[in-house]
């Protein structure tokens, strides 16, 4: 068990200009479950592989516990890694796969047996110990990969999209199992996924990456409620946050036929960067359907209604807008599932007080409210 520290860690692949991971600063606490999330190609796997020693660190440093591991070989880092394709050894039985690391360390045979059996019990794999990976289902293979990491009793678990090869239902089951298991074992874990739902449900904290640059690290709830910039706001949450650009006149943002008052701090920040437009965001649950003439409300034409039983979501277009930036943009709002509006209907939405999030058009950063 150990703290993991990325200190300005940078990786530039040979033959490329832009760093795949750019000065990553991350302090992962002892026993913490940290999720690295971001769109495909943002540098998640590279970050993880740098920690594993499978990828060179071209700048900065990485430490596990008190030890600087920046230039150590993978074998000297005392870590265990679960790969996306599981990387089970096809020529070895499940038991041999799980005990492999201990065998390489030349642990006594009885101890290997004991630890393999223990992990197999934990993961419901006891009856498959003699099988070859080929004769297992996808879910069982995934558990063997987990088992192989557990048996190792490492300082840190590294997992690179370990659930992405499972079907949707199994993925949901397994993600709670992995999270519970990690809490029980208390081993520091760095978990990579492109799926923000996975990130939000599993992580103690979530680090959002984009183009190799860390955007924000925080608890799932704080990421959701206080995104640091437009990217995080749009990436976290499903359905995603409504983000649109509005002109600012005086101390108000102009929402077509109505206006939203901006705070003095916001206006001040806008003045400093010299912008006369602002990005205003609100979550689908941050609006309500209101009657005609309600102050601060704006009209939306319903294009689709998604009914999920416990929830219903309205997808619409800004009606009456003359602003070319907003023409054709979709608005998503959660509506009462018992009386959802009809397709084609025109409704008025109002942002609930305090639910709007304001971002700079220039930098994308959140503006002080």
């Amino acid at each position: 068990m150990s703290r993991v520290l990325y200190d300005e860690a940078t990786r530039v692949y040979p033959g490329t200009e832009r760093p795949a991971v750019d000065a990553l600063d991350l302090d992962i606490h002892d026993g913490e479950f940290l999720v690295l999330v971001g769109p495909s190609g943002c540098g998640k796997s590279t970050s993880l592989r740098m920690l594993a020693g499978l990828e060179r660190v071209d700048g900065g440093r990485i430490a596990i516990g008190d030890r600087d591991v920046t230039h150590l070989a993978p074998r000297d880092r005392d870590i265990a890694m679960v790969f996306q394709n599981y990387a089970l050894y096809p020529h070895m039985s499940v038991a041999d796969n799980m005990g492999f690391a201990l065998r390489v360390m030349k642990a006594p045979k009885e101890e290997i047996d004991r630890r393999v059996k223990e992990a197999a019990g934990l993961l419901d794999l006891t009856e498959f110990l003699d099988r070859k990976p080929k004769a297992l289902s996808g879910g069982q293979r995934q558990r063997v990969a987990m088992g192989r990491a557990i048996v190792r009793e490492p300082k840190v678990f590294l997992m690179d999209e370990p659930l992405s090869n499972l079907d949707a239902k199994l993925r949901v089951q397994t993600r709670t199992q992995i999270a519970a298991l990690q809490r029980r074992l208390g081993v520091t874990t760095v978990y990579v996924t492109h799926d923000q739902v996975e990130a939000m449900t599993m992580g103690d904290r979530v680090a959002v990456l984009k183009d190799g640059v860390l955007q924000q690290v925080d608890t799932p709830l704080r990421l959701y409620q206080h995104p640091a910039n437009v990217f995080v706001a749009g990436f976290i949450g499903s359905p995603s946050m409504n983000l649109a650009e509005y002109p600012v006149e005086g101390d108000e943002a102009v929402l077509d036929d109505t206006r939203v008052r901006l705070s003095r701090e916001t206006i001040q920040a806008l003045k400093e960067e010299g912008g006369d437009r602002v990005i205003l965001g609100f979550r689908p649950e941050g609006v309500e359907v209101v009657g005609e003439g309600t102050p601060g409300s704006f009209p939306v034409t319903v294009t689709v209604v998604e009914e999920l039983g416990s929830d219903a979501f309205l997808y619409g277009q800004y009606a009456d807008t003359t602003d070319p930036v907003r023409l054709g943009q979709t608005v998503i709002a959660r509506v009462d599932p018992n009386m959802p509006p009809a397709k084609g209907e025109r409704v008025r939405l109002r942002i609930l007080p305090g639910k709007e999030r304001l971002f700079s058009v220039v930098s994308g950063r959140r503006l002080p409210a």
Partner: protein
Amino acid sequence: MSTSMTPPASPMPPETLPGEATRPPVTAAPRGEAQSPLEDSSRRTRWLVTLLIVVALLWTLVPLVWMLMSSFKNAEAVTAATPQFFFSPTLDNYRNLFSGANNLGPYIVHSVLAAGISALLAVGLGALAGYGLARTHMRGKKHLAFWIISTRMAPIAAVVVPLFLIFRGLGLIDSIPGLILAYLTFNLPFAIWLMSAFFAEVPSSLEESALVAGCSRWQAFWMVILPLTKSGLVTTFILCLVFAWNDYAFAVVFSGPSSQTLPIAASQLVTQTGIDWGQLTAIGTIVVVPMMLAGLAVRRWLVTGLTLGAITGE
């Protein structure tokens, strides 16, 4: 032929060999039921395939069988104007080969040593170099791979003369090590190229997983990668063995009385006074049969090996 050659790769799992994937279902329609047009045509295809296989078998087997039969005939029967299918078999031809001044024994020993050791070396070195080639990210990797295999494609005549001069300088003429080296000139590039294709099939996450688990590079190669390419190793070994075993061009230039191989012995039977067909077919049999047996013994690996793929068991 494109100039940037990559090793052959086909991610084909063993359960679906090419022939199998397209094979029509074997279960015939119950008797008495009308045949659908579809089954009718698949039936015709099957007949055609069978016919082609029979022709191909005849084409390859008849000469071999004839050679085998002739090697057990006496001189009259061998050269009889009308082919003789029924005769009383004799071991005379073989007896003659192993007696007298020109005993075949040493030739066999030379062949086994030269071909066997050169194939072993080719597989060993080829596996190491092929692994490196498969895993390197260096620039010009494809060109390097092509250059390596192109040395295999160079005509032997172009290699023989410079090699002869080098070997003479090193005192390697008429020696088994000389032959082994000569065979390595064509077997090693082939082995590197073929093995690198097998290694390229093994996902690199397997060795990365081993590295993280505590292996050194060498341990990861030895404990995880090499066992997975067993069929590749066997395939490469057998092919290298056959190439070296069948060689005549190098042997006739580099070998002397103390290193002559079986193909040389065969050629010596073609003398100015005539050809001893009986003994010639007996040598032919001795040359061909071991390779056939070796091929049969490792048939299982050869099939998966020659179709590549099949390593991860996915």
